[in-house]
C-alpha cells in the first residue's frame, strides 16, 4: 500500500534522461572533432573510436529507458510520438558520429591539402557548436516545463532553436564550399580519397541536419 502513490510517478524523469542523451550527443561530437583534428595530423584515432562506441551504447540504453518509461505514461508533458522522434534524432547524432569515426579508421588519405583539412575541421567545429546548442535547448525544456509552459520561456526556447538553425545553415554553406574544393582537386588527388573526403564532409553536415531536426522538435514540444 505504501508504494501505491509512488507508482503514480515515473521512477526516473524522462526529461532528465533526455537531457542526459543530448549530453551524450554533445560528448560524441566533441570526440569526433578531436578525432578529425588527430586524423589530419596523422595521429592514431582508435582511442576516440572506442570512446564514441561506448557513448553509442549508452545512448542506445537511454533511448530504450526513455521509451520504456514513456510508453507507461498516461499524462505526460509531451506528445509520445514527438518525444520518440526527438530521441531518435539525438541518438542518430551519436550513430553518425560513430560511423564517421569508423570510416576515418578505414582509410588514411595519402595527401590532403591544408585548406581542405582545415575546412573539414571547421565543419566539425561548427557541428560541435550546433550539437552544444541542441543540448542547451534540451535543458531549456526543463525551464519550459517548470514554468508551466510559459510563453516567455517558449520564446527563449525559440531563440535557442533559431541558433541551431543558423549553425546548420553555416555548416551547409561550409560543406558546399569544402566539397567544391575537394572535387576541384579530382585531377590531383587519389579518386578514392576524393570520394572519401567528400563522404566525410557530407556525413558531418548530416549531423547538423539531425541537430536542426531535433531542435525543431523541441520547439514543437515546448509550445
Amino acid at each position, binding site marked *: 500500500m505504501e*508504494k501505491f502513490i509512488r507508482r*503514480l*510517478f515515473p521512477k526516473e524523469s524522462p526529461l532528465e534522461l533526455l537531457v542526459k542523451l543530448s549530453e551524450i550527443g554533445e560528448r560524441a561530437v566533441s570526440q569526433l572533432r578531436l578525432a578529425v583534428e588527430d586524423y589530419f595530423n596523422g595521429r592514431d584515432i582508435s582511442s576516440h573510436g572506442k570512446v564514441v562506441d561506448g557513448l553509442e551504447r549508452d545512448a542506445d540504453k537511454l533511448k530504450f529507458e526513455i521509451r520504456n518509461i514513456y510508453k507507461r505514461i498516461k499524462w505526460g508533458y509531451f506528445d509520445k510520438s514527438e518525444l520518440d522522434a526527438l530521441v531518435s534524432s539525438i541518438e542518430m547524432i551519436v550513430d553518425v558520429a560513430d560511423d564517421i569515426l569508423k570510416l576515418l579508421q578505414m582509410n588514411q588519405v595519402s595527401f590532403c591539402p591544408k585548406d581542405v583539412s582545415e575546412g573539414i575541421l571547421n565543419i566539425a567545429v561548427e557541428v560541435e557548436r550546433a550539437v552544444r546548442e541542441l543540448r542547451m535547448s534540451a535543458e531549456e525544456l526543463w525551464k519550459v516545463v517548470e*514554468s*508551466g509552459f510559459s*510563453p516567455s520561456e517558449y520564446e527563449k526556447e525559440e531563440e535557442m532553436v533559431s541558433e541551431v538553425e543558423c549553425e546548420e545553415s553555416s555548416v551547409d554553406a561550409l560543406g558546399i564550399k569544402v566539397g567544391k574544393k575537394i572535387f576541384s582537386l579530382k585531377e590531383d588527388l587519389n579518386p578514392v580519397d576524393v570520394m572519401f573526403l567528400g563522404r566525410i564532409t557530407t556525413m558531418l553536415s548530416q549531423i547538423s541536419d539531425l541537430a536542426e531536426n531535433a531542435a525543431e522538435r523541441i520547439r514543437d514540444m515546448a509550445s
Partner: protein
Amino acid sequence: MTILAIVLGFAMAYSIGANDVANSMATAVGAKAITPRQAVLISGILEFLGATFFGAHVTKTIAKGIVNLDMISNPDYIMKGAMAALMASAVWIIFSTLWGMPVSTTHSIVGGMMGFGIVAAGWESVDWMKMGVIALTWVISPLIGGLLAYSVFKTISYFVLHRKDPLSAARVWVPIFLGITFYIVALLLSIKTFKLEHSFSQITAIVVGVLVFAITKLFMRKMPSEDPYEAVEGIFRKAQIVTSCYVSFSHGANDVANAVGPIALIYVIVGTGSVSRLVEVPRVLLFLGGLGIAAGVATLGYRVMKTVGEGITELNNTRGFSIDFATATTVFLASSLGIPVSTTHTVVGAVTGVGMARGIEVVDANILKNIAIAWFVTVPFAAVVSALIFKFLVLF
C-alpha cells in the same frame, strides 16, 4: 467486549497512521517541502487534532448512518455487528495489502457495517439512499480533487509562472491561497464543531483568512530573490508546509471514523444499553482514535514516509501545493458533511488533475483501473466477511 473493541479499534487507527498517512503526505515529502521526520511530527499532531475536533461527523455516519439500528432490537447484535465490521475491515486491509491493491479503509468499514446490517435485519435495514450518496462520492471525490488540482495548478501557471516577474506574482498569490485555506478550516470548524451561528462563523472565518493573508504577505517580503522559478518553488515549498498540515488535519478528520465508528456503537450500548443515546460521538473515543493514528505515524510512519517520499523525484512544490490543497479541501469538505471518502483515492485524483494540466507526468494507468476494481470489490468483500463473522459471533 468494550476492551476488545477498543483494542481492535486502536489497532485499526494505528495501521491507518502507520500506512495510510504516508499516502496523504507522500507528495509533501516527495516535493521536499518537508522531511520524513517533519512529516511524522506534523502528521502526529495534526492527525490527532483533526480526529479529535472534526472526526465526529464521519464517525456518526459510519456508526448510525449506514444501518438503520432501530430495526435491530437486540443491542447485543449491534455490538457484535460493530465488532464484525471492524474485524472484516481489518481482514480485508491485511489481505489487500498483501495483494498490493490500493483499497481504502473507509470503503472497507462501510462494507463491513452494511454486511452485518443485512444479516441482522435484512436488506431493508441498510439506508440505501445514504449508501448511494456515499458510493457516489467515491467516484466524485477523486473527480473533484482532480478538477480542483487542475484549476489550482492552472491558476498558479497563469497568475504566477507565466508572469514576467513570477516571484512578485507568487508573493501576491500564495497569501491568497493560504488565506482561503484558513478561511475554509475556520468556517467549518466554527459551524460544524463548535456549532456557532452561521453569520458569526462567517465573520470569524473571514477575519482568520485575512489575518493569515496579512501575516503570509509580510513573511513573503523577506523571501530572497534568486532564479525566478527556483524562488517561486521556494515560496511554494514554505506554503506546502501549511497545506501538508491541512492534509493531515483533513485525513485525521475523515479517517478516524474507520476505527472509531464501530467502537462508538459498542461504547454507547455498553454504557447506556441503547444506541439511541448516540447523539454525539464521545470525545474520548475520537481522542483515542487520534492517539492511535498518531502512535502509528510516530512508530512505523517514518520508515513508510521515507520509502514513499524518496520514490517521488519529479514532483516540485507548485505541483505538490496544488495536489495537497485540492486533496485536503475535498476531504475536509466531505468530512464536514459527514461523508466518508478515501483520502488516497482523492490524492490520486488530484495527481491526475495536475497531470492533465501538463504539470506533472503521471504513469501507470493500471493504478486507476485498480482503484475502479477496488471500488467494486472492497464493499461486497468486506460485507460478506463481516456477515460471516457476525453469524459466528452470535453463536456465543
